[in-house]
């Protein structure tokens, strides 16, 4: 299938565009940018676009990957600028390159989780550090696919590494590398588990940002 790949950022107001709507947005943006792309075959052909590891609604990211197939006649170097002129505010193509490695080799995701802690966050940090450092910590996550309606996740096994930074103005950032797929750990599931475990230590607000996609060795994936 198609071998071209985009890395793009999704930020600001665009964070609230759902995965399906984002696919439609890109399909139209390719038309607006007059960039012909490969179509699926079959009875009802449509432009082939695949976005790896759908981002949760409300998250920002600087490392979203989109696969597609450029038709002959356009240079890859032109693609980011032409698409960016055709995309809504907050969606920004950073690079276009030939995709070499299969998406299944994408193993880890590096996140920044910003926590609003206007009354100080030392206690929360200490508690969360303790939980993340446990040998094993199994939480139940509701699942539509599982027969029982829930799946068990052993959280420490899905965390590769983490650090806390104390930012100005009552914000602390948890920088954490989480399993990407099969199964992956959504950082909001992690935060929900942590706030359920420590109900008196609640941040006022939480923001999530994907910083980087990594392979199984923790190296940058492209």
């Amino acid at each position, binding site marked *: 299938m198609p071998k071209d790949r985009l890395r793009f950022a999704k930020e600001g107001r665009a964070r609230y565009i759902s995965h399906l*709507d984002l696919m439609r*947005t890109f399909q139209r943006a390719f038309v607006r940018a007059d960039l012909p792309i490969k179509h699926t075959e079959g009875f009802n052909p449509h432009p082939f676009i695949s976005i790896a590891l759908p981002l949760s609604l409300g998250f920002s990211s600087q490392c979203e990957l989109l696969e597609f197939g450029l038709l002959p006649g356009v240079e890859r170097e032109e693609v980011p600028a032409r698409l960016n002129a055709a995309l809504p505010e907050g969606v920004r193509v950073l690079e276009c390159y030939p995709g070499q490695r299969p998406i299944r080799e994408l193993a880890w995701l590096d996140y920044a989780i910003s926590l609003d802690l206007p009354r100080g966050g030392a206690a929360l940090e200490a508690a969360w550090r303790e939980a993340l450092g446990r040998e094993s910590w199994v939480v139940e996550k509701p699942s539509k696919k599982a027969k029982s309606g829930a799946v068990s996740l052993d959280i420490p096994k899905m965390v590769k590494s983490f650090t806390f930074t104390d930012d100005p103005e009552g914000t602390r950032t948890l920088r954490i590398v989480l399993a990407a797929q099969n199964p992956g750990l959504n950082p909001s599931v992690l935060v929900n588990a942590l706030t359920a475990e420590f109900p008196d230590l609640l941040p006022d607000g939480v923001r999530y940002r994907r910083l980087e996609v990594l392979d199984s060795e923790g190296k940058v994936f492209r």
Partner: protein
Amino acid sequence: MTKELERILPLVQKPARYTGGEYRAVVKDKSEVTFRVAFCFPDTYEIGMSNLGMRILYGVMNAIPEVWCERVFAPWGDMEEQLRAHGIPLYGLESGDPIAGFDLIAFSVGYEMSYTNILNMLDLAGVPVRREDRGEDSPLVVAGGTCCYDPEPISDFIDVFSLGEGEEVTVEMIRLCQRAKAEGWSRARLLGALGQVPGLYVPSLVEVTYNDDGTLRALTPKHGVKLPVLKRIVSDLNASYFPTQTIVPSTEIVHDRVMLEVFRGCIRGCRFCQAGYAYRPVRAKDPQLLVEQGIAACKDSGYQEMTLSSLSTSDYRPLERLCDGLLDYCAPRDIGLSLPSLRADNFSMGLMRRLQATRKSGLTFAPEAGTQRLRDAINKNVTEEDLKQSCRVAFSGGWSSVKLYFMLGLPTETDEDVLGIADLAKKVLAWGREFGADQRRGIRVTVSTACFVPKPHTAFQWEAQVDRAEYMRRVTLLREHMRDRNITYNWHDPDTSFLEAVFARGDRRLGAVIQEAWRRGAKFDAWSEYFDMARWMETFADLGVDPRFYANRERGRDEVFPWEVTSVGVSRDFFARERERAYQAVITPDCRRQCSGCGANQFCPGGVCDA
């Protein structure tokens, strides 16, 4: 985007409706803008963004460099709850700024059942809902759209109504408001000046008095205002602004496609149809220009679908040429072309082939009535032979399902007319079997009926609506005579039609009812999730207002009508003549065959319409 908004957006359904930032949304530098407009649509984002008028006026207003027009839609209940709980006032999608600080709040009002949403949006914005409670610093609240041809039911809440097509008068209104702002005019002085602008109706400048029987005694203008206020039109559509560069929503909306307006007006003169009278005279656009605009809009939006928009699209003389021109571009690019408004009497083979070139959807015809006598009475000049011919074309061309729309409760309707619908549906089914291209495929006929709502500025503006019990009796009668498993019968809810009939021809006394129903929780009355008939009926009863007075009463021949503060340019005498002809079941030829002297030629240079 504020942190408060960031916190509530993950908690609501489809948050992309509340963020703005779409492709082609207009964002201006606040320091270069001196006049802010909140353009409000009293329904959801998905409905409002599908409205072509909204898109046109958004473009017109934002074309003025120092004016910034932003969009505002009614937040769904979950979002409203969050906005109220967190004290976030209603904001413009483009800037996120509270609209209470804007200069102008403008509503597009196309449906009576959205009235309560107007109040709810003003309240969410923190603007007093009643115009008399607004201070010197409050934004001016204006309304336009087809509902404003009877502005009276909502005249307690609206400072200024804009009648007819807004491309020109909106700019004139803004210019006057800018001048008032620069020169520090009082609100009263500005309203007085706006009342002198052709096409603008200022309800505070008109006094209404009543007779003992509840009918209107007089509409008395003050401060030199002239009544009725005549609607405005755009004379030359070819020269008028059309949005080829328009917002492409980032989330799915109802009409998610290029909308190409082919012409305005209608030559037909169906006696029940307000749009047919209110959009007169007919003004067509040049087909070559339309092809250029259609292609430009496809390129700029990236949409894979285009629809032609107008009343009775098949009456556009160069329609086949237009379709060919568009299909030259659309077909090789897999862009679907659809024509939503076709008449059963001129759906041609040539047209069908052109539509088939792209995608095939169901076909809908609207005979409106079941017998020729009643179709003649309402001047829907479609014969059974026309319908047969259209069905033959459609079925032999491969369509296998046809939808038929009718109204029940039309003036002069008898049980024979009701049963005529069943007969017609069965005939269509039989034609399907006779002409169907693929005999193995079943033929489906869907019949829909709605309860007739008499509208102002029509030949039937005097008529009573049949009551609920009578409508349901006719529904049952029809259903019992149309039991065939290949015919599906849907009927519309008569409660909604009843309230539509009340508000469509209501007067100022309904303002109190709307406000009280809203206070008791009414909103999104067009949505079954929210609509509560009992609440409305209790409110009417508690306020001592009889809704049947408005819906189910036949008006006297010379009665003063509340909507006569406005004029669509068609004379009351003409409507009265048309009503007489309806009772005689005599048709009036369409405007191309013969001018019937309706009065709308006053808009045309030289007094001749280009029908």
